[in-house]
């Protein structure tokens, strides 16, 4: 996107594409593009699935119903294999996480400039990042929600007393009362670190993969820019290079998208399972 009448330099182009459309300042900044894109994706995708559920037939299913059933069957199978407790919440949670994260990630496959161009020319918006999961706010929102659910499940399945007891006796047990007092702070510190690592690693794993992928797409566009803008250097080979590289990276990125959504879902189920088991 040209900022003015001259073509942007490479750094300007990249920096322009890495800024969110925000309102407010400091702590009260809201990234409107993340909120709106993730909300729209959620409404569209879950609306479609709800519509399929409403029109579901027990006889021979239509194609869309069969597709939804395949996805749900896969997630349900994973939950049944991994989650050993008894809860009505885990399978819908896993379905939500997997489908929503996958669809938000899939927005990364749309060419880099399409949606920002539409937002600029139709709505007059300067900056717009189309993929919500490249915003660490979005990934941390999801992982902190999972963290809150882990705490709730811990208390619900083990009781407050059981949960506190487990914190202080978790990796190091002993029958000796003196050793128990010695081990208690060590167990507390280890437990604290382990519980803190869960949401942080969940969020940053998804963010890191998506952010790096998006920046690589932007860098490949610069190759094409070298052919058209003539502010970086000119070579007609660079357009061919851009098409080939973008295609290759796009195909590999399809795997990354699916894998990251699947990992987020699997880890959510595993953390819920750990929170609902007592030893």
């Amino acid at each position, binding site marked *: 996107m040209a900022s003015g009448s001259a073509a942007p330099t490479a*750094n300007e182009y*990249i*920096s322009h594409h*890495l800024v969110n459309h925000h309102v407010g300042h400091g702590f009260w900044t809201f990234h409107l593009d993340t909120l709106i894109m993730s909300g729209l994706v959620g409404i569209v995708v879950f609306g479609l699935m709800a519509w399929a559920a409403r029109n579901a037939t027990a006889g021979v299913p239509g194609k869309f119903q069969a597709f939804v059933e395949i996805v749900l069957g896969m997630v349900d199978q994973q939950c049944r294999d991994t989650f050993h407790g008894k809860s009505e919440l885990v399978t819908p949670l896993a379905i939500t996480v997997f489908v929503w994260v996958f669809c938000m990630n899939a927005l990364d496959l749309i060419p880099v400039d399409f949606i920002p161009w539409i937002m600029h020319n139709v709505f007059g918006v300067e900056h717009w990042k189309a993929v919500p999961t490249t915003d660490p706010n979005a990934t941390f929102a999801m992982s902190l929600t999972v963290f809150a659910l882990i705490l709730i499940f811990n208390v619900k399945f083990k009781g407050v007393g059981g949960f506190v007891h487990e914190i202080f006796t978790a990796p190091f047990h002993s029958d000796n009362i003196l050793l128990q007092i010695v081990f208690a702070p060590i167990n507390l510190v280890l437990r604290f670190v382990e519980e803190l690592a869960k949401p942080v*690693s969940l969020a*940053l*794993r998804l*963010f*890191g*993969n998506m*952010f*790096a992928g998006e*920046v690589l797409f932007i860098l490949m566009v610069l190759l094409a820019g070298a052919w058209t803008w003539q502010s970086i250097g000119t070579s007609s080979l660079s357009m061919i290079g851009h098409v080939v590289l973008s295609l290759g990276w796009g195909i590999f990125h399809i795997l990354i998208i699916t*894998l*990251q959504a*699947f*990992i987020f879902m*699997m880890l959510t189920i595993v953390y819920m399972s750990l929170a609902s088991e007592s030893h």
Partner: protein
Amino acid sequence: MELALFLGNTQIAAALLIGMGALGTAIGFGILGGRFLESVARQPELLNTQRVNMFIVAGLLDAFTAIATAIAILLLYANPLVSQIRGG
């Protein structure tokens, strides 16, 4: 002069971040894939289960490499420390 030194060091730091992350991930995936092939050779009926497990571990291996790459990109294009040299 200070800015040039800072920018040069930033480039080296970004290269180290990405390079060492790639090294660790490559070795890890190699070991992972080798163990997967061995286990499938031992028990071919577990192929699908083991493939799913392999992808799960692959996603976990990728995590900190991706985080390191994201930090390297942040250092290169949206460096938060450069404002201190340029005078705010």
